[in-house]
């Protein structure tokens, strides 16, 4: 399937800005919060005031794409938690007011499918509509869903995306679970921080995906995932994916890995690279956007920008090579439990199909 368009809100200045990599922002501390646009002309001020961050970021990215590309054949969202802030606000009211009379706004916005529903409602789109919520594999399942629909001909163009927000509550829970760093870290030193824990990020990325290539289209060729693997099972997953796409490891020019500076789980990435991809260019991205369950969507955007716009900034280079970039593999895991691989190709550089 081919990437027709992308819009993203992230801790970098990515919204409607193709030059964000000339000015990569550095963050200090454990939270990398999004640089949000004004939403003027996208969301009515009266609605915006009531909207949680996840919902407004998702609509802020999704709606302009839906307006621009006309009626899509489906809206597919991946989000681990959806509007978590609203959810816990509602839960807090339940406990604080001893289950008193509550208003439904927080409840309705807290359901993870609120975003896909809102996008359908606003654009009057009655086509396929779904929300995948399997934590660190939510976005990957959204892609697999899209690929099946585009391949079997039940759709030609789809809106596919992800959203995640930092809320105080999930930050507290994850911090209690030792997910984040105990010592202050600068994001530009995250990858080599050599301490336990990572930093918390958030973001929304929306893609218009098509079954048909256009001039300069970037192709998402394959997606696969595994839960609680042994290292050998991960390598097998990768080899099988390359095999069924008719390529070998040497055909991969660059690997985007999810290194997040947590010494407890980064060995997955370094072992993966040294086992299979020792002379490829290796990129990182969590030093730009932090760790969150659907961060792989930002990696797909990055792969697209590298392949299509030749975006290379020193901040994302973990290890350089002289290879021209045609095929990029993304390897990400969430907490060492859920692992995924996404294969992305520049179709102008090779004879590729769907």
């Amino acid at each position, binding site marked *: 399937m081919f990437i027709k368009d992308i819009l993203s809100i992230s801790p970098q200045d990515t919204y409607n800005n193709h030059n964000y990599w000339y000015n990569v922002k550095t963050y200090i501390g454990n939270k990398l919060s999004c640089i949000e646009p004004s939403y003027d002309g996208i969301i009515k001020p009266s609605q915006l005031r009531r909207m949680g961050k996840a919902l407004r970021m998702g609509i802020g990215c999704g709606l302009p794409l839906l307006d621009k590309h006309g009626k899509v054949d489906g*809206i597919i969202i991946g989000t*681990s938690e*959806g509007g978590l802030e609203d*959810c*816990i606000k*509602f*839960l*807090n*009211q*339940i*406990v604080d007011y*001893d*289950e008193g009379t509550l*208003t*439904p706004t927080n*409840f309705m916005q807290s*359901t*993870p*499918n*609120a975003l*896909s*529903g*809102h996008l*359908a*409602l606003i*654009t*009057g*789109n*009655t*086509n*396929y*509509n*779904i*929300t*995948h*919520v*399997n*934590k660190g*594999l*939510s976005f990957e*399942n959204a892609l*697999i869903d899209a690929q*099946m629909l585009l*391949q*079997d001909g039940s759709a030609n163009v789809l809106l596919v995306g992800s959203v995640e927000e930092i809320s105080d*509550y*999930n930050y*507290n*829970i*994850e911090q*209690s*679970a030792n997910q984040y760093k105990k010592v202050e870290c600068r994001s530009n030193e995250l990858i080599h921080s050599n301490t336990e824990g990572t930093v918390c990020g958030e973001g929304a990325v929306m893609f218009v995906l098509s079954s048909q290539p256009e001039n300069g289209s970037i192709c998402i060729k394959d997606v*696969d995932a*595994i*839960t*609680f*693997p042994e290292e050998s*099972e991960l390598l097998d*997953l990768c080899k099988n994916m390359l095999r069924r796409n008719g390529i070998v490891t040497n055909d991969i020019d660059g690997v985007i890995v999810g290194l997040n500076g947590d010494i407890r789980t980064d060995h997955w990435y370094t072992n993966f690279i040294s086992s299979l991809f020792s002379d490829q260019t290796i990129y990182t991205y969590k030093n730009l956007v932090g760790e969150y369950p659907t961060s792989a969507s930002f990696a797909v955007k990055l792969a697209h920008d590298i392949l299509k716009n030749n975006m290379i900034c020193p901040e994302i280079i973990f290890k350089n090579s002289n290879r021209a970039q045609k095929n990029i593999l993304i390897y990400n895991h969430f907490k060492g439990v*859920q692992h995924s691989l996404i294969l992305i190709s520049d179709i102008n550089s090779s004879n590729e199909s769907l």
Partner: protein
Amino acid sequence: MEVFITGMGCVTPIGNNKHENLTSLTESKSGLKKPAIFQSKYASDFIFGEVDMDNTALLSLVDINGLTGLTRTDLLALMAFDEAINDAGLSREEVSSNKTAFISASTVGGMCLTNQLYDDSNLKSNTTEFLESYSGSAHAQQICKKYRIKGLVNVINTACSSSANAIAYGTRLIKAGRATRAVVGGVDSLSKYTVNGFNSLQILSNDKCTPFDENRKGLNLGEAAGYLVLEAANVVAKKNCYAKVAGYGNSNDAFHPSSMSDHAKGITIAINKALEAANISSADIDYINAHGTGTQNNDLIELTGFKTIFETIPPFSSTKSYIGHTLGAAGAVEAIYSVFSLIEGDFYPNLNFNTPIGDLNVLPITEVVHKKNVRYVMSNSYGFSGNCTSLIFEKA
């Protein structure tokens, strides 16, 4: 590639396993009552569908195998999952094969631990056992850990149609060749979160729900888990197959976050898509296991949809009159009940029905209807945010 249902497992307010559920349905036995286990200020105000075992009883029945941080949601899911794979005769190797997918659904997840979550999210607690337990996907990760599941895993949340979409997604993975087997379904347990949420929308009934009745007062929340084993035709061999997944249709009503459009747009599109996928006409449907929540809006609009699609509306009923609305589990449990109807040739009556709605003159069945040669049964699921899904099961 045809996709067959070869195993089923469920735990609901009318039975702790598949067999008990079938018996209760056959005897028109409802599980709706004031809850004995669920703790909430509203427990005595409303009627619920509660699974008849507290967590200690559930723990004694589930082999937890070293798992920690288990919630009621997890325990219900583990129980139904185990029954389904055993029912299908899957070996542990088959369950953990990388060609076996696991697609689940939940809307409440670990939020059934409302007070614990409050403490943890507001840093008022020292305990860490449940820190990884709150997500909608937490139960799936527990199952992955216990059964060493290595195939594709997903969890879907489209509110009350979640597990109907899990069934469709698993079926599509098999048809696309991404899996040869899939365990599909969903789970939800009673929680203060949903009780207060639905109460804030003023759609909970203080009596047993009366789907499709003129004087319906709202829904009863229920809890349940249901899982089905789907297998590709080429691996089924000589296995006993309960049914085929013949069609599925998904649409968004695109009208309102919590109510359905007057013309039943999403409902009719989803049904038509399912009929088209099954390559049959509306006249081929023998019975409909309706969504039928018992709310003013749903039941009226669902019947409006039926009148649009069917020249003669086939026998239909809502089995929510037995177990309440089990949210993320509803699509899976009602799929299992639909398969019972296919196998047994029995359509289970809509309980508590007295008066037809307005001048629609459309009545659900109120007695057990037995029909020979039942071929196609439809199951409907509709959720907040406009998510509509219809499934069609065919006799194997």
